């Protein structure tokens, strides 16, 4: 459910009333923490949020995914089978979630390790070479923030100041020294998107 709406309290425009996102990849890629930082930033901007991980043996088996919903309204189901946006970081997740993007929705993926690229014509598709870039810049720890940057470029759900607050709240105090790296990674990600299929 999307619509154009001006935020009454802050001096910028938001485009989304309710954004339903699936983030999926391998355990260790920072899938859950990317979702948590996005969700916590939403809380800081006083939006309604939910963060629903897949948990249990599936996590230990290698794949991890999390459903994040950011909304201006009370959130109904935290568990969904159709999404506005899918952020996909491995092939298994591509196989599972490409078809779960709503028509007109968005798919962002890192092509590293992807053997079958997305083929749908009814959704917007962008690739982001986040793992390559993270490797080059020695920022592999914040690879997930590069991806998040790409997403925020296309869907600025939360303002940068709240992303900063979200990082502060999500990361334990001993990791606060890494916040500048995280923010740098988000900025880098905003410039890395490659449009592959863009709807009018």
């Amino acid at each position, binding site marked *: 459910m999307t619509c154009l709406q001006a935020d009454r309290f802050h001096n910028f425009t938001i485009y989304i009333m309710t954004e339903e996102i699936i983030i999926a990849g391998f355990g260790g890629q920072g899938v859950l923490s990317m979702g948590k930082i996005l969700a*916590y930033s939403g*809380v*800081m901007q006083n939006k309604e949020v939910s*963060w*629903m991980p897949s948990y*249990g043996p599936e996590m230990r088996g290698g794949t991890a995914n999390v459903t994040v919903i950011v909304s201006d309204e009370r959130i*109904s*189901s935290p*568990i969904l089978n159709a999404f506005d946006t899918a952020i996909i970081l491995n092939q298994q997740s591509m196989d599972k979630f490409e078809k779960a993007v709503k028509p007109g929705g968005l798919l962002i993926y890192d092509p590293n390790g992807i053997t079958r690229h997305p083929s749908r014509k009814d959704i917007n598709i962008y690739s982001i070479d986040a793992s390559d870039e993270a490797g080059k810049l020695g920022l592999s720890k914040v690879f997930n923030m590069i991806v998040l940057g790409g997403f925020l470029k296309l869907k600025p759900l939360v303002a940068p100041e709240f992303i900063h607050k979200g990082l502060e709240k999500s990361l334990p105090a001993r990791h606060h020294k890494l916040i500048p790296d995280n923010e740098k990674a988000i900025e880098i990600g905003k410039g890395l998107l490659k449009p592959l299929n863009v709807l009018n």
Partner: protein
Amino acid sequence: MGELRLMKGNEAVAEAAIRAGCDGYFGYPITPQSEIMEYLMAMKPYETTGMVVLQAESETASVNMLYGGAGTGKMVMTSSSSPGISLMQEGISYMAGAELPALLVNVTRGGPGLGTIQPSQADYFQAVKGGGHGDYKMIVLAPASVQEMADFAKLGFELAFKYRTPVMILSDGAIGQMMEKVELFDPIARRTDAELIAQCPWAATGKPKNRDHIIITSLDLDPAGQERVNLKLQAKYRQIEKDEVRYEMISCEDAEYVFVAFGLSARICQKSIDIARAKGIKVGLFRPITLYPFPVKQIAELAKKVKGMLVVEMNAGQMIEDVRLAAGCSLKIEHYGRFGGIIPAPDEVVRAMENQIIGG
């Protein structure tokens, strides 16, 4: 406005317990609720509020520690998940019999047996019908959000002490594991021993010269005496049924059909309402918040107004029995359920409504 945080349901109930002035937590690890004790141990409330946090040797020991603490008037809680709650049933029955206040959090998972660690609602009967031996009930609160996990910890303690009865928060693995925005209430100071003794004259706190000794027990070997105990309990349950029913109705004003669902299922049904209404089907949701006391009158009223009800549960059909009893009429009331840790999808629930109620 209270403090805003992004928290897991398990963390929220733990934080809320500290803030509610809880005196003691006793638990045993089990997935998917272990974050409750982990959070408490990490927060070290024994250094701030003085709350005791103890990892017991089993769920059996946990629930009996609860019984011991409750018998001395302390505000105590435990948490577990389905198999562990089964082990606790003896202690819950003893606490109901001895009229002791305590809070139990059940973050349920699929069964029977060791089952799965994924969410389920298959422990409805166990919770609302009195899972242990004897004629007893406990108040059962069913949170549908992380916010309610926090709010119901405080409410649960209030009701437990108001009625001197065990109270259960019947949550599930999804509510326990998911994170949502929570507005936390301001901390309430733990009662001092003097305040406790004044508020709980029934509690075993050490016998002063000026009162009789206090005996906390559920035993009365004389059948006439035991019948009196039961009559007193039943009178209390009638009072609870009169005063403590809680529920929520969403989009029911013009609804022709309604979902009846609690906890996570109710959240899914809210999405189903959007989907169904986009198709032109006038659907609403009735969500019991207290599963015991069950909103009998409210469901009976609603049953007069609608054309059919679909009871959506993550079990093989449990609450539907109470819905049908409450409706007490020939209205079409059917059940849709997924089990063993499978969560139904919103569109799947809409199809069930179309097939089983509207078209069926």
